[in-house]
């Protein structure tokens, strides 16, 4: 727009329709009409740069070095190692196992989340009685600390727990969280249940935006309730579905607390180890933050690819 070097003639030029006006003071031309906006926004901007932008670059930087912790004040050289950390990420069997585990988690958790939250949200949307009670019940696990709920799930799913008591002879042996085949699927079910409230909330918001005319014309054309659900509701909430897919994938890739506590740190036999658990073990417990940062970078790139694919195939043309 108006720059400092703009000729003074700018004001005198008979601009079409606009009356000649004063040039605004320099501060306003540089910073906008309300320069105080910078002052109001500054704390947040500084926060974003210090807590997100800088550490993000720092993580990428660290992943190319044999970074290690030294005593404060000690002057040590942390050698540049190029892609060595990344080579190690792709050859370490523990890392491969952890990515496989998260893959199993996502294959169970994501579809289950989408189907259950959409069905429950549309049910909730069309009833009139007990709405608040049902809504609150669905949201309560989401707002409660995972650490607290994990206590109950350990109790419920332990060897002699209530679930196995009810199942009787059908109870798996070894029990859920100590069974190499069942540990990760059980964690996936737990997380689905815990997070479902958020996705129900998102779908409820999206359902308000489905044009009612579509239901009316579908009904006139003789579509039953089930047909309406698949032909009107499902396409109508597609943007929300993309969002639910994305958030549940990111949440799944971030899995830490659940395997740390439910399966005693990724057991049995590493069958529920997750990349974030490895990042913690490598970066903080064993003091290889450079390697841990490389695992993080690879994980985020994988999540971005999955997110892009989801957006491409579930998002449609809009």
């Amino acid at each position: 727009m108006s720059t400092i070097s703009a000729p003074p003639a700018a004001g005198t030029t008979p601009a079409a329709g606009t009356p000649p006006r004063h040039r605004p003071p320099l501060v306003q031309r540089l910073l906008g009409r309300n320069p105080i906006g910078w002052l109001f926004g500054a704390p947040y901007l500084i926060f974003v740069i210090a807590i997100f932008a800088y550490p993000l670059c720092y993580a990428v930087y660290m992943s190319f070095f044999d970074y290690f912790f030294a005593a404060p004040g000690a002057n040590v050289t942390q050698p540049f190692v190029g892609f060595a950390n990344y080579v190690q990420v792709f050859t370490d069997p523990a890392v491969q196992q952890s990515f496989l585990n998260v893959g199993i988690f996502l294959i169970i958790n994501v579809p289950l989340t989408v189907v259950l939250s959409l069905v429950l949200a549309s049910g909730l949307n069309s009833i009139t009685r007990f709405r608040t009670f049902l809504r609150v019940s669905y949201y309560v696990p989401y707002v409660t600390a995972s650490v607290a709920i994990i206590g109950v799930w350990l109790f419920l799913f332990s060897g002699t727990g209530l679930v196995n008591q009810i199942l009787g002879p059908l109870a798996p042996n070894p029990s859920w969280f100590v069974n190499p085949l069942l540990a990760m699927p059980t964690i996936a079910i737990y997380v689905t249940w815990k997070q479902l409230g958020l996705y129900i909330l998102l779908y409820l918001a999206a359902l308000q935006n489905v044009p009612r005319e579509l239901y009316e014309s579908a009904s006139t054309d003789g579509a039953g309730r089930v047909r309406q659900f698949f032909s009107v509701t499902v396409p109508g909430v597609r943007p929300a579905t993309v969002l639910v897919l994305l958030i549940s994938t990111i949440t799944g890739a971030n899995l830490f607390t659940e395997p740390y506590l439910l399966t005693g740190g990724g057991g049995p036999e590493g069958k529920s180890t997750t990349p974030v658990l490895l990042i913690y073990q490598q970066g903080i417990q064993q003091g290889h933050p450079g390697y841990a940062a490389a695992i993080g970078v690879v994980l985020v790139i994988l999540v971005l690819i999955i997110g892009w694919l989801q957006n491409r195939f579930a998002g449609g043309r809009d």
Partner: protein
Amino acid sequence: MTTLKTARVSPTPGKRRRRDLGAATRLSRGQTILQGIVLTIGALAFLFPFYYMLVGSLQAAPDTTVAGAFPNPGNLTLHNYAAIDSRINLWSGLANSGIFTGGVLLCTIVFGVLAGYALSILRWRGRGVTFALALLVQTIPFQLLMIPLYVLIARNYGLADNYLGMILPFAINSAAVLIFRQYFLQLPRELFDAARIDGAGEFTLLWRVALPLVRPALVTVVLLTFIGPWNEFLWPFLITKEASMQPLAVSLANYISTVAASTTNPYGAILAGAVVLAAPVVVLFILFQRYFTSTDIGSSVKG
């Protein structure tokens, strides 16, 4: 309750849509019953673990049989609460969680309101970029930031076992900034123009005009921000090694993963701790649930 909120944003279409939707998709009697059954089973599946948490925390001896799911007067005790308190000091855990959560709430309210106001009412260069950042920040996964933040905050700045170190990464909730922005945008611009002509400065405008009009947003933000740090485990777990500095979620998790095996009724004590950790959030949420609506939170997530 959702209807009320929607109606406030777009009064007529919202209300009409819901009524006509009901007419167009009227269910048969059987379908209504089926829907009721599905929703009720869902609600039970969601609530049962909480009920079982409470029952289990009161059992003198853990009873995992089906009968144990019902409180047995002969097997009730408050001993588990004393047991967990003697192991992890519930009061200091609650105080640390409170300070951590309170610090985050304070920063989020003060700086979030300022940023939300700047992003909605004020015109300044860099506004679009800041808004884009607020959206983008929410998609950055914490797993990538965890190691550099740990190196910076715990190692370089020496803020391990320190409330400031705990609070910093969560200090300003970006979702809160977007919720404030959304609410300020709904206020009529004439209000601000009139006050400006009367000579009011922007701080006065924000404090006297804008803030009193967005009180519901404050409740929503407090509720939404509260559950973040109160429930957070990973970050305070990384940054606190001293037991006296740990929030309740961290000390309870440490109890679950290390000392639980050495006690007679580990589940009773764990569940007692879980009740103490879960109760404040559940009570707050039930009291203010009508502020936890799809319209507010949906808009902040979608931008």
